[in-house]
């Protein structure tokens, strides 16, 4: 009788322990669910960021290689990651154009934080502005002199 009871307890404890711990871990998601704002659907960070390229896309060719310049974020490790992220997102938005992280291309995309950019920032790369889209995205041409 005691052996039967011990086996039942062991089996029961095993099942309960695994089930309970799994369920508690699953319950971690409840916080995510409760704090989710349905109004935020479609307006997440990346979707909003990609919108800045909508106007530019209309004037770009279907295929080709273009350069890329940007004003750097605050110099720090996280700033560096953010700069890389902005460049990658530019490539993601403008695919299948190939965007190189260099100003040394015939045409260059400028992707800036601010609408007002110090002219020194881009003149150092010897480019001229062809068009500005919403202030922060520029299409630039390499000056050939």
């Amino acid at each position: 009788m005691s052996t039967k009871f011990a086996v039942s307890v062991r089996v029961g404890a095993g099942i309960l322990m695994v089930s309970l711990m799994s369920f508690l871990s699953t319950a971690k998601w409840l916080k995510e669910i409760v704090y989710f704002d349905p109004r935020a659907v479609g307006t997440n960070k990346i979707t909003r960021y990609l919108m800045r390229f909508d106007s530019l896309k209309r004037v770009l060719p279907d295929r080709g290689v273009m350069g890329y310049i940007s004003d750097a974020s605050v110099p720090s490790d996280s700033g560096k990651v953010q700069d890389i992220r902005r460049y990658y997102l530019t490539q993601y938005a403008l695919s299948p154009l190939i965007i190189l992280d260099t100003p040394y291309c015939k045409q260059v995309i400028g992707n800036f934080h601010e609408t007002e950019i110090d002219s020194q920032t881009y003149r150092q790369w010897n480019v001229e502005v062809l068009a500005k889209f919403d202030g922060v995205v520029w299409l630039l041409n390499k000056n050939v002199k």
Partner: protein
Amino acid sequence: MIPFVFSLLIPITIGLSWVYLFWSDHRLLSFDFLLKASLGVGFGLGISSSLYFLELFLGWSSRSKTIGVETVLLLVLVGILCYRSCMGRSDVQVPKQGSEPSLRGAFRRLLFLVLFLELIVDGVAFLVMILKYPHGGWDAWSIWNMRARFIYRAGIYWRDAFSPLIGWSHPDYPPLVPTIIARCWRYIAHETVAVPMAVAMLFTFATVGLICSSLSKLRSSSQGLLAGIVLLGTPFFVKLGAVQYADVPLAFFVLATIVLLCLQDQLSESHQSFNYMAGMAAGFSVCTKNEGLIFVLAILIARTIVLIFGKGWKPFLSQMLFFLGGLIPLALLLIYFKIQLAPPNDLLSSLKARSAATSLLEASEYVQTIKAFAVRMINFGEWVIPFLPILVLYLIGLGVHVEGREKPSIVTVVIALGLTGAGYFFAYIITPYNLKWHQFQSLNRLLLQLWPSFVFLFFLVARCPEKALNAKEGLEKTPDPRGIVH
């Protein structure tokens, strides 16, 4: 909406028909339907992706051709199945393991309740996550979805997706996931984030379905439920699925290969269909991520050892023939991709023979990697408390139970997972990157690729609750002709 549903329904139906073709069963909705459906989801997406890649290669860039090819394939498969059904061809019956009565009463209800609640919570959480991150996580948009955009948008210039000029996006990564997304976009004739979301959801929940149903078949329903509970109770698994990382599809194909080989071991030598499907699943794993190559090498070594030493040369050759029959066509597709399209792998190309040799002799690299593996394994999964000690306690409580004829399957899985893990380990040892950074970036994801298979193995060797409870009633006193090892 209708074209979107059809763009996924057609590959799934192709996959399901494919599974029925090799696992014939005159009853459509049999006990094994969940197992077949789970396999069908992965096989369907894999087959459609491979077909679309071939179409791209052949220059068939029109939508009607894509739809036409798949419709013809589906009709042919359905036709063969109907013909077989009419001819009354015998079914492939995998014997159901475990003669014990199902777990009774409170325990059974508890397991069903927990699994059901987890499915609801995880399902809603998955939806919340994909709505919050419709483009997926960093790797999803910067690698997989971006490549899908290239393939879909560039038309005849789809090869630009693999340009070495965008080496940072790892253009050498295998194309299965981006190709299936681009194929669905082609199908519905526009780009929508709903496609990668749906693909991610299908792979995530098909993995759960596969582990539950396969263990129910190979062990007992409670064992299947417990494995599903553990997998669904791994927040990191659901999270990585929801942010559309390719590690989850890879985990699915690794698990599918292992499950199919275990099912094969339940059949007589005259039936080799599961070997063929296992080879295909292994092929899809290679086409999903580069890590799939390590897994395929590991499973080939494991199977060779088990079959030669356990069964002899003749069964080895016949089983390998079928396994390779499923693997080789997909491997050829990948070889073409690697030779013709993909630039050199960043890890391998920056690897210098001398520095790799130096790293292999560097004790500190081993110490750091062992430490990283240990820490990540203990903290893996994002559980409320580390889960591995709980599994160890569970195993101590219920014990180990391996039947004699299941030994080959279990040894295969142990060797395959062990060798794959060792492959990952040595990839870190010789990495040309900063070791700490490399481990921080990827180790958790590598562990996740093997996690469903590990859970499967765990519940394959753990004694079923039914068996443990029946043992107390003296049922195990009956001599077992199959040579049970306790």
